[in-house]
């Protein structure tokens, strides 16, 4: 088997046994990136020199008897997460050339765990999008069909993991931006409970919804990266000061007696029949494995999309006020200060401007109660739906997205159509739970289908183990896209 086809856990075993060095694994990945990433365009920046230094250092440390959780494992990081000395653009021209003076907490954690950082992956501008087409720099292709989108906004990270251009990757999930691209690219992506991951050093989009999340080719790989990056950080006042369990130890594969809720509101018209069939088959498979299937209701599901598209833009309009060309980023001069700020802000792309406009309106005098205020109240009802559901069940199973990956350009001029790609993932961000997506089949065009498992607050262990149990009883995760196969 080629080095680049190893899973993260297989690589880690090889590094521990001494049959592989980190320099070999890193060189193999960097070579494959050169060969293949012209077609996929998953990376915005490749930090090859730094990666090889980190790899050599990891090998030296291992030779001294050290062993940290990701020692020598090459990882990719979404370009919305600050990396000291390495450009961080958030996919926006307004941060073109920005070089962060410090690392995000999760990058600190990666480095402390001994990981090798291969580079920064493409994203929709400020994580606003579902296809990476809103990146100001490049559109990433889906490794399963390069004419299709990889999903978004963490499409670069999902595509890099699917195409074996990184052993795992970090993304962020504000409305589904880890789970939806994981579904489109046939990999595993986790959105942890809000507060489980520090947002320190993560470019802010919607602060009450943003959360960092890991991608892996398998549930075990995703769990290993999650384990290494989760944890309390006092610099993020919304970070939860709670113990991080040993998640890798809970992957027993035993789900006998687990109560799995299936919400009827998630099987609606508009869902592709092949997606529904694959998800229903996966739920039946979990029943075979000993889970108890319970039909449940999340009655306010249909309101999640409008609520999200009022709250997220409102928060974004406030967060993005900081881009004024004064302290960082390019500046476009005008006749006076205000004109300069306005011209500089013309560097935002169309979707970002659209959301700033929408958010500004929803917060403006006379409309606050009607839009933002109302949305916050409905958010309470959506959150309450989950509280009620988790009185009956341990986890919830749904499709991740109503469709498989769509063609590049298909929804580019249709904001509402694009927003619908996240219709099954948004509710979670508005509530206090956690969720993941994992492969559960392919449609007739060979495109991956994702199963979403949702857990209660801080119950990542339950969804990870359920996902692991299902995955180990199937072979979906063993199928690889043909990208660059030669």
């Amino acid at each position: 088997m080629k080095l680049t086809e190893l899973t993260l856990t297989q690589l880690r075993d090889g590094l521990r046994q001494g049959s592989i060095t980190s320099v070999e694994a890193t060189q193999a990945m960097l070579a494959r990136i050169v060969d293949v990433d012209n077609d996929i365009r998953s990376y915005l920046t490749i930090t090859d020199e730094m990666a090889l230094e980190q790899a050599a250092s990891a090998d030296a440390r291992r030779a001294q008897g050290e062993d940290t959780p990701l020692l020598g494992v090459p990882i990719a990081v979404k370009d919305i997460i600050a990396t000291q000395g390495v450009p961080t653009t958030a996919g926006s021209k307004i941060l073109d050339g920005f070089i962060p003076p410090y690392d995000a907490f999760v990058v600190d954690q990666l480095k402390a765990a001994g990981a090798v950082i291969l580079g920064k992956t493409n994203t929709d501008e400020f994580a606003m999008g579902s296809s990476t087409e809103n990146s100001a720099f490049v559109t990433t292709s889906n490794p399963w069909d390069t004419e299709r989108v990889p999903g978004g906004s963490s499409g670069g990270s999902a595509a890099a993991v699917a195409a074996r251009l990184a052993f795992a990757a970090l993304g962020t999930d504000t409305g589904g931006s880890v789970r939806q691209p994981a579904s489109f690219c046939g990999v595993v992506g986790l959105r942890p409970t809000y507060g489980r991951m520090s947002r320190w050093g993560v470019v802010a989009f919607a602060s009450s919804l943003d959360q960092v999340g890991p991608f892996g080719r398998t549930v075990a790989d995703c769990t290993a990266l999650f384990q290494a990056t989760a944890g309390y950080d006092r610099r993020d006042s919304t970070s939860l000061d709670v113990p991080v369990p040993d998640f890798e130890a809970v992957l027993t594969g035993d789900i006998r007696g687990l109560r799995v809720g299936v919400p009827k509101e998630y099987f609606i018209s508009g869902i592709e029949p092949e997606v529904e069939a694959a998800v229903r088959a996966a739920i039946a498979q979990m029943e075979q494995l000993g889970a108890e299937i319970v039909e449940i209701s999340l009655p306010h599901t249909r309101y999640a999309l409008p609520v999200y598209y009022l709250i997220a833009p409102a928060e974004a309009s406030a967060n993005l006020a900081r881009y004024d060309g004064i302290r960082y980023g390019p500046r476009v001069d005008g006749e006076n200060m205000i004109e300069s700020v306005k011209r500089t802000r013309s560097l935002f792309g169309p979707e970002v401007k659209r959301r700033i406009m929408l958010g500004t309106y929803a917060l403006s005098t006379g409309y606050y109660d009607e839009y933002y205020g109302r949305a916050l109240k409905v958010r309470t009802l959506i959150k309450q739906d989950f509280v009620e559901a988790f009185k009956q069940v341990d986890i919830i199973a749904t499709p991740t997205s109503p469709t498989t990956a769509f063609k590049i350009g298909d929804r580019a001029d249709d904001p509402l159509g694009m927003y619908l790609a996240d219709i099954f993932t948004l509710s979670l961000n508005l509530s206090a739970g956690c969720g993941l997506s994992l492969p559960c089949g392919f449609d007739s065009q060979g495109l991956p289908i994702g199963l979403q498992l949702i857990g209660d607050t801080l119950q990542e262990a339950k969804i990870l183990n359920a996902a692991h149990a299902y995955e180990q009883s199937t072979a979906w995760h063993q199928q690889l896209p043909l990208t660059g196969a030669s």
Partner: protein
Amino acid sequence: MSLTLADVEKIADLARLELTDEEKSQYRKQLSAILDYAAVLDELDLTDVVPTAHAVTRRNIMREDVMEPSLPIEDVLHNAPQEAQDQFLIQAVLD
């Protein structure tokens, strides 16, 4: 909900965005459509429903009031479009 061009111009000014005529006309249509979509929330009775601003609420997160190292000036100014005398340089804001 149908926004007028004047509405769009007012919002753009509040948000400090300079829009082309084409953008104004496009956003007028698109934002109106999105706000129409949001009107579905009107069908809910929200009397007595408390708003949720955050998924997981923590209150009064404090730390000891002690000095901690901050970034060196050169790191802080490294990304500045213009700087002078260890400060960010901007256009005059007062005549």
